[in-house]
């Protein structure tokens, strides 16, 4: 029982949804797997947008458009060719039961530093279609968290030239270090996360790629981690280094 919930609003349009969301102690609800698991007592009102957001998955010659309401399992089932996307979805959620309910929109909105899928998406930096309720298209990294995510548009070329590595004690255990790398025409994006307080991201020009710059990335990113049962900062640095090497090899 999520005892603090007093009311559920089911909007019929984005306008209604934004209105309901502005009520105090309201949260947007897509799949609900994170929200209902945590049952925050600070939430009194649910705004269920699962009915109005896009749920389709469309593949064209050069891009993929994923509705925010698509479940992680839908993505795994329909986009089997995109290894890193599928892998990240599986790693971020080993339970198929939860994957049947968790939406990609929710995964982005939750911004979990431990999520391989979120980390990978930050690296890919897709264009997300936001409704405020007006339609806006903006790159994920530039999103100010306002509005409702309706669609995620990814360039195939980014999917093909990206890789993700994760380190955990077991395949289903939460990863303590995650590294995602995407190569674009002239740039390399590095995104590092895991059991850390923030997602670290850094872009370098391909021409600048060197041992020194890698060292800087490693030293800067490890600042977001702390010494814990998964290891010391030294160890995490070496994992980040290995992760980068392996992810880069995949590209």
């Amino acid at each position, binding site marked *: 029982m999520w005892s603090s919930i007093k009311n559920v609003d089911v909007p019929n349009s984005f306008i209604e949804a934004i209105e309901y969301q502005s009520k105090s102690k309201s949260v947007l609800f897509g799949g609900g797997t994170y929200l209902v698991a945590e049952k925050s007592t600070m939430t009194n009102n649910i705004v269920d947008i699962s009915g109005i957001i896009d749920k389709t998955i469309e593949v064209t010659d050069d891009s993929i458009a994923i509705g925010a309401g698509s479940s992680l399992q839908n993505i795994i089932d329909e986009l089997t060719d995109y290894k890193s996307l599928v892998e990240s979805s599986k790693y971020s959620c080993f339970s198929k039961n939860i994957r049947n309910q968790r939406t990609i929109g929710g995964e982005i909105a939750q911004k979990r530093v431990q999520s391989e899928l979120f980390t990978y998406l930050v690296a890919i930096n897709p264009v997300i279609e936001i409704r405020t309720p007006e339609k806006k298209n903006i790159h994920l990294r530039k999103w100010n968290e306002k509005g409702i995510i309706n669609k995620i548009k990814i360039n195939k070329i980014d999917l093909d030239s990206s890789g993700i590595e994760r380190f955990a*004690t077991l*395949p289903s255990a*939460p990863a303590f270090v995650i590294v995602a790398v995407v190569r674009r025409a002239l740039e390399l994006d590095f995104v590092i996360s895991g059991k850390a307080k923030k997602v670290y991201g850094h872009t370098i020009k391909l021409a600048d790629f060197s041992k020194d710059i890698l060292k800087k990335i490693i030293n800067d990113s490890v600042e977001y981690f702390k010494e814990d049962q998964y290891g010391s900062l030294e*160890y995490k640095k070496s994992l980040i280094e290995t992760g980068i090497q392996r992810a880069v090899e995949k590209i």
Partner: protein
Amino acid sequence: MKTIGKKTIRVDGESLVKGKPVFADDIKLDNPLYIKILHSPIAHAKIKNIDTAKAMEIPGVVAIYTHKDFNKHYYTTAGQGFPEPSPRDYLILDDTVRFVGDNIAFVAAESLASAEKALKAIKVGYEELRANFDYSKAMDSPQIHPNKGPTGIHDVKKNIAANLEAEVGDTKKTLANADFVFSKEYSTPFVQHAHIEPHITLTWLDENGRLVIRTATQVPFHVRRIVAEVLDFPIRKIRVIKPRVGGAFGGKQEILNEEICSAVTLKTGRPARIEYTREEEFYAARSRHPQRVKFTFGLNKKHEFEAMEMDILEDCGAYGPHALTVMSVTAQKALSLYRCPNIKLVANAVYTNLSIAGAMRGYGAPQGFFPLESIIDEIAIELKFDPIELRKINHVRLGEEIPIGKIIGEGGEGFPVIVRSMGLTECLEEGKKLIEWNKIKALKQTGIIRRGVGVAAAGQGSGIPGIDMGAAFIKMNEDASFNLLIGATDLGTGSDTVLAQIAAEVLEVSVEYIIVYSSDTDFTPFDKGAYASSTTYISGTAVKKAAEKVKAQILDIGMKILGVEKAEIRNGWVLAAGGKKISYSDICTKAFYTDEQQQIMAEASHMSYDSPSPYNATFADVSVDTETGIVKVNKIVSVTDIGQVINPQMSEGQVEGAIPQSLGMALSEFMIFDEKGAPINTDFNNYHIYTAIDMPEIVTKFVNTHEPTGPYGAKAVAEIPINGPAPAVANAVFNAVGVRIRNLPITPEKVLRGIKN
């Protein structure tokens, strides 16, 4: 034999796959109270005041109990026989809290939501005391328990809950003269049972005012006795029912919440329910005792063990249930596997301000076999001798008496232990083949991933000798079926089925004709409960004896009805000369209604001074990533000698289930506390147990021996398979990358550091 050793579907299986309401919580109570416990957020403090006024005002809250509402009666929560060999250092509610999670108050309310609200509204004033979380410092840390009140604590001022020392021969002299001496220290961490069904208890007063306790427990009879004692309520007015239990592994060998729930029912007259949340399971239930073990070995030139010294320091957490007995088992099992004329043991169990440790599968043996099987490997490597050969040379032999067995029982003196069945050599040889030992050892490895193999041997026991008793009662029905009433406790372990098989075998009927009812203190005879791997060996023999008595009655009445002096039983018939015969069902029908009228029934009890050890060899095949230190277990081979296997599928199931529990202790599971003693990983995400995608390949095999003192030659199986995987993996990691981890868990960083050095 008709049923023994044959595939037999579990007798309660249909209800389980159909999802029938057979677990403790699957009934509706009439207007119950829901109980929540206020747990201490501080590791060590005196409670100066508790203000429940605001909490009582919350709608739905019916009562809040604090230490002021109970008499000061010290007991132990350990589910053990009387007199319990554990310190009586526990009060149902105390004015001092000793770990983060200790109980401060109970709230009883009309709904869970009200109870939870009330918890937040209770105000507690503390006087914080210094806390210690490091068991190596326990003896010099602030005293955790008071001088007056508790009993059975070995040295309360030094925080020593229990102490055990034993000696055979003269290790000091032998070590001084030994050809080779090795000494190393190892440790094992706090791990959790993680049974999927939480602790759950329901209580109510029946129509005659008797207290009924329906609870997920391993020890219904101990629950009855201890609740009676703690609440000063007569045993004759208590009935304990154990329904289907969703896993226990030692975590429910405890009086955990039954006394609280009963107290609420007795005080209010209303039914009550208490269920732990998963979070509470992680810090406010019980866990395995962490131990630090130092072994010193002396060998001669023939690689024979001449002296073994074992020094144990055990962390009890804040209270001491099972403190003495767990480390006794650690010592007794580890020191009983190999021959050695000179043995010395020093063991101490100490208090710290951390979560309470208790019984957990293996009950000290895993904590002993990890160091033992690791040091033997280290010795083999140092002496450039084959580790399997070293074990073969030294393990105890059939017919031998084990000197330490007589000295250390389970907490105090033991009984002579003579090995009457022994299959360890075959286990080692079979396992070596199945893991492809030679092939993996011969691999030429150059890549980033390195493969290795490791072996570990182990023993255990079958019940607690001289103490454990189980009883059975059998009565016959007209259709030649039999009711088998047993106190023995099926936790999913399948004991209802195994015991039915034994009865069926004796009575020469099929298992469908045995109707099992177990673990209800009003209807079933006494059984100490499901722990110490006693059910097949002890309760099974009681069942066999009772069934034999019943069979004799059937024969006797059959002969009387047939009017003969000689006859025999075969397959449900009494047969005599001249073609005279009468079926079981005719005999019973006549005995009910017309001839030789009586109820054919018999009971039997069994206790044994023997506790024969099953034997096991576990092999691990691992791959280590030399860039990250992450260890992947590819395959585990577990070969066990359990005497006569009674139910092959179930025995395999016990081995298969124990393996990930041990691998978890080795690699991925460990409880973490912060600098204030508060537990950090209290959910399945962060305390990670194996899922279906993590499992290595598992190969299980049984080597057949015959234990003359066991029913149909059987020994125990439930605990032994949990002893081998952790040391086998540690040994395999060394084989793969030359890194020896002596302090579990084997974290990736420890491995990587070792590789880099």
